[in-house]
């Protein structure tokens, strides 16, 4: 096998022990920290026998190691157990809620990249001049402000004051039926169902949470892009390119930006890992029925199975995002293979 192939394989296999660690940690943490959920499901006047029965139904009667082995066995065929809250299997719950999170995440992240990278380039090529300072103000506040506050302020401006965009009531206005589910993405499903009106409604609902997400992701992206661009523009190969008479555009975009993109890719990978795990606070403000809200409810109600399922999903997503970044690196950057 080629050296590159071997490196990639080793990197891929490394995911397994990390995943195992995450699963184990989650299981014991949920058990140790989150107390006994029997109380939440037993009526106050319940007899001890009834409580024991409930415990058995919840799978909590066995000793901890037995529960753990049982849990691992089920995980192997993607059985995360049943949520106490919804009564559905956790896997089904997660996949029901995934599209909402993904749709918001994709649009938000796309906005963040579309704003962040050009902003970073603009700041770098105007280094220490006013566009750089203005953008620095933007990135600093984008990173320093809590996402939920940005969301609230946008709601106040665009919904409460200007009435341009709809209020925070979820993916569609109240009372509007979902289009038949094909992909779960409303922006796609509504078109597939031949309902452009629905597409418009969904887009308007999506606008504010996506812009909030876009602002708070654009800030770190712009910052890292700027730093990497500045670094690249001071390198020897750029000096050579300048000496050879290339114009500024070629210098900025063809040489500097392309070389500056690697750290930006790393950052975007990390951000994507976070976003697709569901923005807990953002979703709770905009009543967005995604994974973040699900996790919040699971925490509030000590819903072990749901919580574990979610945490495992979120952590693996994170691990996979970095795996993807590393693999892209190995393919793109010849220096790593050496």
């Amino acid at each position, binding site marked *: 096998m080629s050296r590159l192939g071997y490196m990639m394989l080793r990197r891929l296999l490394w995911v397994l*022990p*990390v995943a195992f*660690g*995450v699963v184990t*940690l989650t299981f014991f*943490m*949920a058990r140790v*920290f*989150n*107390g006994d959920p029997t109380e939440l499901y037993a009526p106050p006047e319940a007899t001890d026998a009834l409580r024991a029965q409930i415990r058995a139904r919840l799978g909590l009667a066995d000793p901890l190691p037995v529960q753990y082995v049982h849990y691992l066995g089920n995980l192997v065929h993607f059985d995360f157990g049943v949520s106490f809250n919804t009564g559905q299997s956790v896997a089904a719950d997660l996949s029901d809620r995934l599209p909402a999170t993904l749709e918001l995440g994709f649009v938000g992240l796309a906005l963040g990249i579309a704003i962040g990278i050009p902003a970073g380039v603009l700041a770098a090529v105007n280094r*220490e001049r006013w566009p750089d300072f203005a953008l620095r103000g933007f990135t*600093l*506040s984008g*990173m*320093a*402000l*809590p996402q*939920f*506050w940005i969301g*609230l*302020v946008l*709601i*106040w401006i665009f919904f*409460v*004051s200007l009435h341009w965009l709809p*209020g925070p009531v979820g993916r569609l206005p109240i009372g509007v039926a979902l289009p038949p589910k094909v992909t779960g993405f409303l922006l796609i499903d509504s078109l597939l169902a031949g309902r452009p009106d629905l597409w418009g409604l969904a887009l308007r609902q999506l606008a504010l949470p996506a812009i909030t997400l876009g602002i708070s992701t654009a800030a770190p992206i712009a910052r890292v892009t700027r*730093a990497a661009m*500045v*670094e690249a523009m*001071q*390198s*020897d190969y750029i*000096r050579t390119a*300048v000496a050879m008479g290339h114009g500024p555009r070629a210098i900025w975009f063809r040489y500097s930006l392309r070389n500056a993109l690697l750290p930006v890719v790393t950052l975007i990978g990390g951000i994507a890992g*976070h976003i697709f*795990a569901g923005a*807990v*606070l953002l979703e*709770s*403000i905009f009543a967005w029925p995604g994974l973040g809200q699900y*996790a*919040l409810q699971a*925490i*509030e109600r000590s819903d072990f199975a749901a*919580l574990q399922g979610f*945490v495992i999903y*979120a*952590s*693996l997503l*994170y*691990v996979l995002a970095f795996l993807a970044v590393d693999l892209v690196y190995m393919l793109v950057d010849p220096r790593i293979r050496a």
Partner: protein
Amino acid sequence: MSSDEVMAPPSLPTSQAQVHARPRRRRWRTTWSLRIGLAALVFYVAVALLSLVWTPYDPLVPGIGDGYDAPSLAFPLGTDRLGSDMLSRLMMGARYDLGIALTAVAIALTIGSALGVVAGYFGGAFDTIAMRAVEIFQAFPGLLFAMLVVQAVGAGIVNVILVLSFVGIPDYLRLARAEIQAKRNWQYAEAARLAGNPRWRVAFRHLLPNSVGPLLAFTSINAAFAALVTASLGFLGLGLSPNTPEWGNMIARGQDGVMTGQWWVSFFPGLAILGLTGSLYLLGDALADLADPRRRR
């Protein structure tokens, strides 16, 4: 910082003008970041201390105004739904958000860098185990972890501080380990060893002090993160008791007001957070510049 970076020759300035212009500009920017960041931080500490002895009104007493009073001369930042004075509550909130963030970060810095020095200098089995543990912990979403633990062990300042410091430890461990590994075989460390110092002394008295710059720079950034998580926990109602004037709590309290036009209740606590975290970021940037003169910006 990777060892490659240390070894790389500094790139040569391209013209005579740059030789003089670049360092001066960088210094200008660094010193101003440092000044603004420090000044703002001192301001917050001063407000927090002031709130111990004086606030315009009692921050915890409702019914001082009629409820949702707009900003006016009597109430410069308005009042909340219950009629408590917003300015007084904001001032008192500085104690919580600033105090929690700084304490948590101090604990994480101490424990994390000590572990990192041991892992980086002595290596071996401890290093392997520590790094694996770090990798697993870092796969956990930090905010979620904090929510989970606080919900389970109960709200309260001490618990929030402990959780935040625990979440921070892996980062410091990593950073300190990388620093020590890079410097372990530098000449001054070699000299210290040859002079007969025991190994722990070389690690903690010679190598660690030389890594303080990057660690402090990260601490500042990390404190901003800790303040944001504190506010997030407060916003979700998981952090401190609901009546505590912690800024995240206050934003949550004002959420209904935003929908009906009383924007000030949620708006001003957000600005308070922006000032605190923003100044910590500025400070962190400046410290990173100072710690690494080669860092080009």
